[in-house]
């Protein structure tokens, strides 16, 4: 069954891509202002400042799911779940990346605070989640190790 699903999705890939593009267009027109200084900043402190999240409060209501050791630094699966009421946005910062701010996801009122994405990481680093809820900022982090690997065992 899984094989079938995979084949089906491969076949429909072109159609799906087209659909996604038009969907994104709609999204763009609704999106908040592009955080130019944030996405262009080269250190975490500045990226956080651009989000107005320099003094974010650590929260146990934010769960980051990411591997302890990345299988492939070029695409590290990261999932952030916020159980904080009225979550408005989730940003993900990779502390040691050349451009630490990787993404900001805005949520429409009442949406579940959940994002799943893949990030590129060049070296071992903290992955930091910033959650905006009711105008306040909250944070959590998890270290993901990036190794050249080998040496079997």
């Amino acid at each position, binding site marked *: 069954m899984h094989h079938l699903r995979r084949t089906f999705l491969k076949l429909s890939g072109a159609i799906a891509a087209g659909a996604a593009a038009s969907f994104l267009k709609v999204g763009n027109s609704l999106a908040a202002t592009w955080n130019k200084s944030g996405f262009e900043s080269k250190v975490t402190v500045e990226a956080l400042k651009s989000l107005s999240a320099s003094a974010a409060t650590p929260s146990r209501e934010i769960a980051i799911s990411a591997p302890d050791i990345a299988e492939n630094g070029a695409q590290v699966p990261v999932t952030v779940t916020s159980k904080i009421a009225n979550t408005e946005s989730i940003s993900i910062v990779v502390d040691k990346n050349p451009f630490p701010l990787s993404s900001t996801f805005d949520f429409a009122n009442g949406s579940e605070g959940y994002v799943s994405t893949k990030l590129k990481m060049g070296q071992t680093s903290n992955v930091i989640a910033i959650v905006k809820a009711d105008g306040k900022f909250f944070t959590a982090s998890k270290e993901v190790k990036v190794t050249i*690997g080998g*040496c079997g065992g």
Partner: protein
Amino acid sequence: MAISRREFLHTLAVSVASGFPLTTSANTLGNTDHIYDIGQLGNGVTLMHFTDVHAQLMPNYFREPDTNLGIGNMAGRPPHLVGAKLLSAFGIKTGTRLAHAHTHLDYEQAAFTFGAMGGFAHLATLVKYIREQRPGALLLDGGDSWQGSATALWTKGADMVQAAQLLGVDIMTGHWEFTLGAARVKELVDGTLRGKIEFLAQNIKTSDFGDPVFTPWVMREIRGIPVAVIGQAYPYTPIANPRHFVPDWTFGIQEENLQNTVNDARRKGANAVILLSHNGADIDVKLASRLTGIDAILGGHTHDAIPQPIVVRNSSGTTLVTNAGCNGKFLAVLDLHISNSRVSGYRYQLLPVFANLLEPDPEMVRLIRDIRAPYETRLSEKLAVSEGLLYRRGNFNGTFDQLILDALMEVTDAEIVFSPGFRWGTTLLPNQIITFEDVMAQTAITYPSTTVTNLSGESMKMILEDVCDNLFNPDPYRQQGGDMVRVGGLQYTCDPTRRTGHRISNMYLRGKPILADKRYKVAGWASVTENVSGPPIWDVVSEYLRANKVLRSPKLNLPKLSGVSGNPGIN
């Protein structure tokens, strides 16, 4: 012959022992008369467990490490105890069979006295014996069975699958199996193994949709008692070994999924929940402290023959953590006492498989003979003889690895050579002839190419730090792979207790400091990169051995250690 081989060898062992310091007193734990006396079960279930046999169908020698350092809260805790420290921690008397099985102490003499260990024909006899006394006992294979010998490589694991079926393995999980490639593993699991051996892994999913690749767990009835067994494959397979062998699968420890699986098994009525794990001892200890509802983790990967389980507390009770050595040297027998549908007690016995004490099982002897027959000439090619003991296991180097380094250096003319810190591989006694089969027992992998590259001093430092962190990170979930990479030509200082990126210092080549921006000619093998070409390492080593014929005991190139004096993980 009037006297059986067994009686003969037993007599020989006793008479030899009396002439050596290794006296076997009749009442010690290592007394041969009691070594396989496993007692009565009572009301409960039995699980037999072996792991990391690395395709060693024949009896062999395996010298336990003299260096197995534990860092942070792992310091001084099993499995990070070696030699006399290990013996005293578990109440094993020096000079006994058991002491020999568990340590490197007086290794050569003890090996001559007590003989080779393991071998599937001998293991088969022991398994049958246990099954007679413990009807219904399950036999679990913790993985790393289909790799480590020439025949396993040449038959793509088919020889080991046949042998495991005849042995009566019920359930297995994997690690090096995956280096045969995803397609081959699936072919065997869905084909030959189907309905015979259950291949379990709760922690392997497809990287696109996260669908399970293998059955995560099974419920089996032992004497009418439902027992759940969950499989845990090596979580860092695509990192420690080439990812291109399993490009569409993702691994990891998967704690949350594991806890859900345990809960599911409990809900469905399991009286006991067992995790058949290839995590390695330190990961298993941490895992046991964080999850609830697992009665025992039967572990492997790190090749630690831990005589008794580590009892780990967690928020709802305790979990036993075991590790059963490697190379077919041990068969673990875990009796779980059951009352009120729960585990109420246990007895664990890690039985050493002494080939001299167990008659080989005739059917298994025939199978192994048939498996080897087409390759016998190639396997038995005599390459050289070594005057010294050749072994691999240990955190930093072993004499067989030194031999590989020496061979690489001589054949490739590189100034610095690297060889991976694998934990598998057999031991050869002094003056034992080195055959091609013995070379393959150290090198038989599906990515054997040797490479010569120009590496900067900075890159070499980065590589050493990276491998060192994979071995000594104070968080076991951030450790992966094997022992420290072995190096030839290069001298360095290592402080395992320091933080990531700061453990390696004082790197020298022939008395001169290594310069960060200078490039050096470096040879190595077992690259995890795809499409690497170069002669296979076994050809390089064989060429070196044929040319040298008689080898002096290799001189170990070891790093200077700091920060670990007094650590009971070093002799």
